[in-house]
């Protein structure tokens, strides 16, 4: 097996989770999830549809935000990605800020489409490369979008997994908790425990995250790299300097 970068591992890991999705939407500032969506599409023989918010390129561009949000509510989007300045063990995400609202000590951008797509897209994958107690907290300061809802709340969607620079958690909706599913090569369960501020379920044996095989790496470098370079030129140049020279 060839060598791979940490980005390629994450891309391949997320792409595996997108297998059942027919239509994958990707938000702004998401080069790794975007690459994963493109990889999943390439693997499907391009039968999957990938919509990249803000893309100006066919076939990835959308008819705009209203169309995309409506599309999700119609049940026509199967997978989406969210992140957070803070994420807690109930999969609540905070994109807003830290401290007493509204004059917070730390203020971020805002909730964007989170407290909507998180409810409506069946498979939402949380992605945050930085794995630290600063990010993964016992309880978020501000719930931009909740991870779980009361049974009477209309919510066909929700969190499927949390992918970080260290590991993969799967979210168990019935229990409302994360379960450690795999740890990336070169990292350990102890490291994950040390760097995670929230409590999570952990089986006795935690496998190592599957590493990308040669076929995957070829697809990533030959098909995904040039395609993701259009919305994310700086990212593509950094990760695949040869492929997108």
């Amino acid at each position, binding site marked *: 097996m060839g060598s791979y970068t940490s980005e390629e591992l994450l891309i391949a890991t997320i792409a595996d989770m997108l297998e059942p999705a027919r239509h994958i939407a990707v938000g*702004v*500032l998401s080069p790794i999830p975007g690459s994963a969506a493109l990889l999943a599409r390439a693997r499907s023989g391009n039968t999957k549809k990938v919509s990249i918010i*803000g893309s*100006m390129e066919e076939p990835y561009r959308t*008819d*705009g*935000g*209203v*169309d995309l*949000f409506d599309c999700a*509510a119609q049940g026509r989007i199967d997978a989406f990605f969210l992140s957070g300045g803070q994420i807690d063990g109930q999969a609540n995400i905070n*994109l*807003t800020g830290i401290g007493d*609202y*509204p*004059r*917070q*000590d730390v*203020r*971020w*951008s*805002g*909730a*964007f*489409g*989170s*407290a*909507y*797509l*998180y*409810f*409506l897209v069946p498979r939402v994958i949380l992605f945050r490369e930085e794995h630290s107690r600063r990010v993964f907290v016992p309880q978020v300061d*501000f*719930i*931009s*979008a*909740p991870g779980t*809802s*009361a049974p*009477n*709340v*209309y919510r066909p969607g929700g969190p499927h997994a949390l992918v970080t620079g260290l590991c993969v958690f799967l979210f168990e909706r019935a229990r409302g908790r994360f379960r450690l599913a795999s740890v990336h090569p070169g990292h350990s369960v102890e490291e994950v425990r040390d760097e995670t501020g929230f409590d999570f379920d952990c089986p006795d044996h935690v496998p190592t995250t599957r590493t990308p095989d040669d076929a995957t790496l070829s697809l990533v470098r030959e098909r995904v790299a040039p395609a993701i370079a259009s919305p994310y030129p*700086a990212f593509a140049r950094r990760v695949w300097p040869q492929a997108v020279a």
Partner: protein
Amino acid sequence: MNDAPASLLLDPVEALAARIADGAKVALFKDCGVPMALGRALVRRRARDLHLVTVPTGGMLPDLLIGAGCVATVETAGVTLGEFGLAPRFIAAVKTGEVQIRDATCPAIYAGLQAAEKGIPFMPLRGLLGSDVLASRADFKVIDNPFGEDDPIVCLPAIRPDCAIFHAPCADRDGNVYIARQAEMKILAHAARESFVTVERIVDFNLLEDDRLAPATLNALYVSAIAEAPGGAAPLNLPGHYDYDTDAIRAYAKAAATPEGFRVWLAAHVLVQTGAAA
């Protein structure tokens, strides 16, 4: 209509800025084209107490207006400079309380505008339940879906801006505006009482008489005034016309990180205005 009121086409962009009153609720479309030239003219005319509605999010333009002291309230799903980082003047003003923040989500902003577009008092929307965004908005109401059973749903009040401002590729002399693929500009223009538009150029034929252009044209009925402002979205982009000026945006992001840096930037790039960059 070969007979639009002569006053519809105004020149220069200062004349448009003069029509946007202090205290006005002003909707800013996020996607191309962001009316940067008009925004700079608003700063120069020392606009005050604006209530900005970003549609649905915003970047350099609301950050600039906030930093220049034009804004009392910002209603937004998020303000960010994207790959150039957080929006420094927005963040500083929210933290001090200098501007009142009304956090929303992207679809909530759209739904509020669509309610205004449809002349209905509110629009139901899924999501939001259990979020602190909802908790922070006393004007959002939760009702029981009258067609369901024990099915709470959020209702959002209509957002009716006093005006929408945006930049577009072209307009005709009858006041019709070509909005290209930005179909949501129609929602914005329908929802707002008035629309003030800057364009790259004025064309000499009626856009609505061209069957290929008409579907992407905003009817003059919704347009109060137009100013020709070539490069009016710069340093942001206008697809098919010009790309982002990344150096200029990066320079802004760096300067705006401090109040002093912002003041210097403002003096150099907005207050002392040369014709070409207006």
